[in-house]
């Protein structure tokens, strides 16, 4: 590869041809501020915050998109550059509500940080200035995320993620010029369109223009209600991420601290979604074996990611029979919390308030689905994202650093390494294989680390010898990658037995409710933490979880048995992309 030598702020820098000035400067230890730029995903040069002076150029150049040239002389910090950036920021703020104190993104907002860094002290355009959006434009129709166009800086990072990563484009630029807003077609509410509710847009939004819907007040109210038994479950992926909210490194495992924090917040029982992840493996593994041996619809596809479920319901309603009928682990545990647990503990189920802590905004939507009340009540009352839990901890003055490590409560708190890895892409597949192999062959698996399905590659495939059978599996994360596999299935070209799909990049560790920032490096660190947690656990296969054996013996009977069927399985609703599909049966199960 040819290289180019240029001068940036009086330093000679040698970089590969085609590098942007932004990257070249980074190599030289110079951080050029950015707002709209997102490596590999959004390089559109729109915000003009990253401008630099290039000798001989007619105007300032946007460093995020301008390629380096031989002999180029760049100044990233001249008077002109600083003034221009400041003016651009001043303009943005002139069309922005200055509500930091009451904003969800207060202290974690890129716009705020820029404003601080640039030393902006006054916005000269506010008196009598027009605004492009008003409070009427706020869209809080969806249970998962809220859009506040007043705070939007039109960086289009959300649009890029939704389009290029998820392949949905539920939102995009509409209107022109000063009137431009990011919104769904026809200015519809998000709840009325084909949005997967994945919340990836809320992860990349630099401001408070797209956020998770904050449900913490509901939980505070429940905690304050003496008549309520407030039960909480925590997802596999929250434990390797929440510590970031308290200044620790991504990937730090803080299972015990999280449990301790929840106890201090006043939750009565703290269960682990990992338990139901193990349960999922038993149910889903059995379902797969049944489909393979009895000629059911193949490939079978995992169903634990509600963003993914909503997507396939919209876009591929014809393929719903490929989905496993298993509920997501959250909803399995939710049903047990309002059915099995109260029976066991002698509590009236109507007094139970069921909360889950999830890396996920789509799970807020899932909890509200009509199907999710098999206990006779709404199985999960409120879903909080990792970010919201951290917010509650800060509100309650919990000092994360000094928290002790505590354990989950019985009987739904016991889990295995197989459950922990649900949080990372490929994890469900690996966990399922660990169990299926041994259930089918009745032999111990030689190496339970299924490395071909780990990592950030978009689609991973593997063929495994299980007894006499060559089992072909595939793993996809992000909806964009899922679509590729679905198209293969539609064309009849997919010869897989089992496919894992996770909606979010990297799986739930990169979920839409995780701490911000969540970028590639952060995802990789959380994945590393996930596999480390797996290694550290004494039991690493779901079928070896004694609590699982126990619940089947004492309550559920057997996987796919009658009670399992009622509590742990579900069916799906064909939705269509823009209108309800006609003549399609409800997918999935006979229920």
């Amino acid at each position, binding site marked *: 590869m040819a290289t180019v030598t240029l001068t940036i702020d009086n330093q000679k820098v040698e970089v590969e041809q085609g590098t942007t000035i932004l990257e070249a400067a980074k190599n030289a230890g110079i951080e050029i501020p950015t707002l709209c730029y997102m490596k590999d995903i959004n390089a559109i040069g729109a915000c003009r915050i990253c401008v630099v002076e290039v000798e001989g150029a007619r105007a300032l150049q946007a460093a995020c*998109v301008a390629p380096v040239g031989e002999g180029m002389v760049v100044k990233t910090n001249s008077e002109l550059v600083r003034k221009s950036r400041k003016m651009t920021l001043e303009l943005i703020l002139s069309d922005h509500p200055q509500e930091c104190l009451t904003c969800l993104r207060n202290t974690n907002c890129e716009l705020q940080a820029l404003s601080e860094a640039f030393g902006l002290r006054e916005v000269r355009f506010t008196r009598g200035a027009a605004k492009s959006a008003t409070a009427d434009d706020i869209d809080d129709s969806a249970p998962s995320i809220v859009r506040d166009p007043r705070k939007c800086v*039109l960086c289009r990072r959300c649009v890029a993620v939704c389009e290029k990563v998820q392949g949905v484009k539920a939102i995009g630029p509409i209107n022109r010029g000063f009137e431009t807003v990011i919104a769904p077609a026809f200015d519809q509410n998000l709840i009325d369109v084909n949005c997967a509710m994945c919340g990836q847009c809320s992860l990349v939004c630099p401001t408070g223009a797209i956020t998770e819907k904050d449900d913490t007040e509901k939980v505070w109210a429940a905690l304050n209600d003496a008549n309520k038994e407030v039960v909480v479950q925590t997802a596999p992926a929250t434990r390797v991420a929440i510590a970031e909210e308290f200044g620790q490194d991504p990937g730090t495992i803080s299972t015990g601290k999280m449990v301790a924090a929840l106890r201090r917040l006043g939750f009565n029982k703290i269960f682990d979604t990992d338990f139901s992840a193990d349960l999922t493996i038993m149910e889903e593994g059995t379902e797969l074996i049944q489909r393979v041996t009895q000629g059911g619809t193949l490939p079978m596809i995992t169903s634990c990611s509600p963003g993914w479920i909503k997507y396939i319901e919209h876009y591929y309603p014809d393929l719903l029979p490929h989905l496993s009928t298993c509920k997501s682990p959250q909803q399995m545990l939710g049903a047990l919390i309002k059915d099995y647990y109260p029976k066991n503990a002698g509590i009236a189920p109507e007094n139970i308030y069921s909360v889950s802590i999830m890396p996920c905004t789509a799970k807020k939507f899932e909890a509200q689905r009509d199907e999710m009340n098999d206990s006779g009540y709404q199985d999960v009352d409120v879903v909080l994202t990792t970010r919201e839990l951290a917010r509650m901890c800060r509100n309650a003055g919990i000092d994360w650093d000094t928290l002790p490590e505590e354990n989950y409560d019985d009987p739904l708190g016991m889990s295995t390494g197989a459950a922990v890895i649900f949080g990372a892409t490929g994890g469900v597949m690996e966990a399922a294989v660990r169990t299926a192999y041994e259930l089918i062959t009745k032999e111990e698996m030689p190496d339970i680390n299924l490395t071909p399905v780990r990592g950030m590659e978009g689609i991973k495939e593997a063929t495994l010898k299980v007894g006499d059978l060559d089992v072909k599996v595939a793993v996809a994360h992000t909806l964009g990658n899922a679509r590729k596999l679905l198209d293969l299935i539609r064309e009849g070209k997919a010869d897989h037995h089992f496919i894992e799909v996770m909606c979010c990049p990297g799986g739930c560790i990169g979920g839409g409710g995780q701490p911000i920032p969540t970028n590639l490096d952060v995802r990789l660190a959380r994945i590393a933490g996930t596999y480390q947690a797996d290694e550290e656990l004494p039991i690493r296969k779901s079928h070896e979880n004694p609590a699982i054996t126990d619940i089947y013996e004492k309550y559920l009977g057997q996987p796919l048995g009658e009670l399992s069927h009622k509590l742990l399985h579900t069916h799906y609703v064909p939705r269509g992309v823009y209108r309800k599909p006609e003549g399609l049966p409800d997918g999935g199960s006979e229920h």
Partner: protein
Amino acid sequence: MSITYQDLEEIRSKAKEKLAARLGKDPADEFKYHVLVCGGTGCHSSGCQAVADTMEKALNDEGLANSTKLIQTGCMGACQLGPVVMVYPGAYHYCNVQPEDIADIVNDHLKNDKFVERLCYRNGKGELQATMPEMDFFKKQHKIALRNCGLVDPVSLDEYVGMDGFAALSKALKEMKPQQVIDEVKNSGLRGRGGAGFPTGVKWQFMADQEADQKYVICNGDEGDPGAFMDNAVLTGDPYSVIEAMTLCGYATGASKGYAYIRLEYPLAIQNFKKALEVCREKGLLGEKILDSDFSFDIEIREGAGAFVCGEETALMASTEGKRGEPRPRPPFPAVSGLFGKPSNINNVETWANICPIVLKGADWYSGIGVGKSKGTKVFALAGMIANSGLVEVPMGTKLRDVVEEIGGGIPDGKKFKAAQTGGPSGGCIPAEHFDTSLDYENLASLGSIVGSGGLIITDEDTCMVDLAKFYLGFTQDESCGKCTPCRIGTKRMLEILNRISKGLGRDGDIELLEELAYMIKQSALCGLGQTSPNPILSTLKYYRDEYEAHIKDKTCPAGVCKIRGAKKATS
């Protein structure tokens, strides 16, 4: 059926005979008179259709249909005088012709060989100027780009060929290597007429140097500058010249497909261009193996959908791809990655209109016209407070004064020239003290304005420069695509400040704030629209700062245009 070089030459020699009357020679066929009714947009708007219909009927009724040829042409130039009817031989130029005037033309001129004096043009001094060559408006003009406009039937291939149409293409295909064609264009010194003035041959070379399985040639017919209409005139009045030039470029640069992006507001242009495309395809002047050579090329029309920013080349390509017309950063330049990600060469309509004569007559001929680094001619759309508005093609380097006073006939009603706004919303104004300036790229730039697309708006003492700046800014603000911050929000804020100034609500420091904002937007906006949007403000501030101050400090509009509540009577 594809015609050959041989066929083309036969068509040409026959057509030349038929055109003789219009070319100052004796008629060589049965038609004694050629009556040309202008069908350009301006005349169309002032009712030329009824004039043409009446004329046709009269010719039939009077039995003159066999000896008088009636055609409808594109714009003849002096749109203000429309509907225009010309009678050849002699190029008699009848102005403001109404259907009821036809009888006189038929009886006096066509039957009795006596021209109708009362329909002829008289200049400001009352002197009769009956024929086109006599008229002040045309005397100083030098028509290259507009050579056929108003002279031929726009959709008749024969007439175009008779005017040496397709001679350049056939010369190139027969005798010239692609590189020779590029060199000819390079050496001519032709610069893009779409606004930026980039050397056309150099641009062609970039594209020719790219290796690719597919390349595109694009004609930018979006003509968005409100006040410029030369591209409309060429597309409507001489569509074949653009088709031939694009085909030449395809040959020179290795492209096999062209797109002509024409703005929706030009239905006549679209109609004529479409018709011309059909004829070319039918005759094998487009399509496979053009003129029996090995070269194949075809052109597709794309209609704009109402967005000024689509004139910007990257936005135009996005729009052609069916997307929102939002510009993108360059590099990559279109020559490397353009339409559908393929190397593309985009030129303005007027640029295209200059190509064939250059290839045919040679670079030296072309570069002999003009001054300095501004070669050839430029078409200006002369409008505003001027006696004769219309299209004016003059050699680069012509003096502004000559255009205004001689060609344009001066300012009407004895008013005084105040300023000329050139280059539309991206341009600036030239004040009276520079009335003798030469109209060329370098010189206008040095005055803080631009040649741009050639809009030339004349203002008189009754024009308020704050109001004019506000007008242009209102336009750009309205047309901003909204992608980048400085333009999306910055133009809005500039307009808000101008609005309050013009209402007499300006604040101390507003001028400085405007200047700072204008300067920063110029530096930081993504595309030319934003980068040039402050120009009208900066240039009016440069020459008419006192007018701004009068609005702010004295709460008066010196020109009496801005409605200021409770304003003192203007003192000037």
